[in-house]
């Protein structure tokens, strides 16, 4: 454990791919330990896998099955590499910068919910969906009235105000799309 805390705005730690990899490694490693352990100690393959191993022993290296296995391995390898290399969006965003050392952060979910709450109060708005992705606060507004452009302007102003109050350190631009409902 380090003595300094991690940044609040760090990138996602890749918990899901690491968990899946850990489970697969444990399962395959455990299975191999059992099979090879029995072989090393008793000198024969375990009864349950003997026929399978005998079938595998006769497979030629240029067989279709070997090529398919290689393809699957390459695909899994690429997925693991991409999961590690692609940075991903941080869960929290740095906001309200001031002279005190350190940082203030708000989760992207909370930013979106705050904008949604503000836009829901705008005249003519029936329902709102909002989410933060990259540098954009993406807002989808449903309205039953004809003046969709007016609703869009008022919703955009409300979203901009909600963002301005939090003063995100990195630019976060609101984008509002309006859908007419009957």
């Amino acid at each position, binding site marked *: 454990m*380090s003595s*300094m*805390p*991690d940044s*609040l705005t*760090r990138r996602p*730690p*890749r*918990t899901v*791919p*690491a*968990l899946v*990899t*850990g*489970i*697969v*490694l*444990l399962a395959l*490693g*455990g299975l*191999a*330990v059992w099979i*090879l*352990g029995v072989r*090393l100690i008793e000198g024969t393959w375990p009864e349950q896998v003997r026929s399978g191993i005998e079938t*595998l*022993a*006769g*497979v*030629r*290296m*240029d067989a279709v099955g*070997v*090529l398919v296995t*290689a393809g699957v*391995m*390459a695909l899994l*390898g*690429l*997925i*693991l*590499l991409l*999961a*590690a*290399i692609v940075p991903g969006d941080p869960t929290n965003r740095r906001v*309200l910068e001031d002279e*005190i050392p*350190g*940082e*203030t*952060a*708000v*989760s992207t979910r*909370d930013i979106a*919910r*705050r904008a949604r*709450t503000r836009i829901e109060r705008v005249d003519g708005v029936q329902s709102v969906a909002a989410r933060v992705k990259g540098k954009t606060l993406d807002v989808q507004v449903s309205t039953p009235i004809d003046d969709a452009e007016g609703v869009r302007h008022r919703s955009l102003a409300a979203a901009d105000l909600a963002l301005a*109050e*939090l*003063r995100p350190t990195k630019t976060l631009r609101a984008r509002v799309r309006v859908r007419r409902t009957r």
Partner: protein
Amino acid sequence: MRTISGPRNRVVLVQLGLLLLLGAAWLISASTPLAEQWPWAQDVLPHATSTLGHLATVHQAWLLPVGAVLAVLAALLGIALLISQVPSAPSTRALRVTDEQDHLLGTVQPEVIERALVDVAEETAGVQSATVRIGGAASAPWVQAEVAVSEEAEAGWAAEAVRRRLAEDLATVLGTSPQRVDLLVRLRSGGAPSSARLDSPAREASVPA
């Protein structure tokens, strides 16, 4: 605040990804004329006509023990990877307060200051609840706090006020400004707290049985 090591996960994923790609390339090389083109690599590259059983027989002397060791290592790595997904908090220890000549004046448990700072944070208007963790040395402390602020409140003002109070109060207690004050703001719907206490403990005690 408890976190999971992202860099450690990424290093393991990159290494396993590269191993899988290498293994796939080795298997695919059997269906290519690579072994004929690179005679020096004939010993390590598989031949199209070979069978898995033949390869195992040729390398029988070392394949089984090495395979068993690798299997144990894979299982251990899997366990280690699963354990490392349990979030861990940065280590904290008692803060040693010293004078200018570096003589020990006393020690303070971080929990004592943390409780006081939680009270300070929760006194701020709009803050519903707070957790505070401090660490580092008394001469270079850090603070990491999390506050739940009502959505209806001035979240920006509340966050700035909490950070300022945490920095000032810690500087007052330890005589040194903190190295960093990190604050995670959670926006919560509903302005009123879920419970309220009207009677003070002193008044309750004075009520006859």
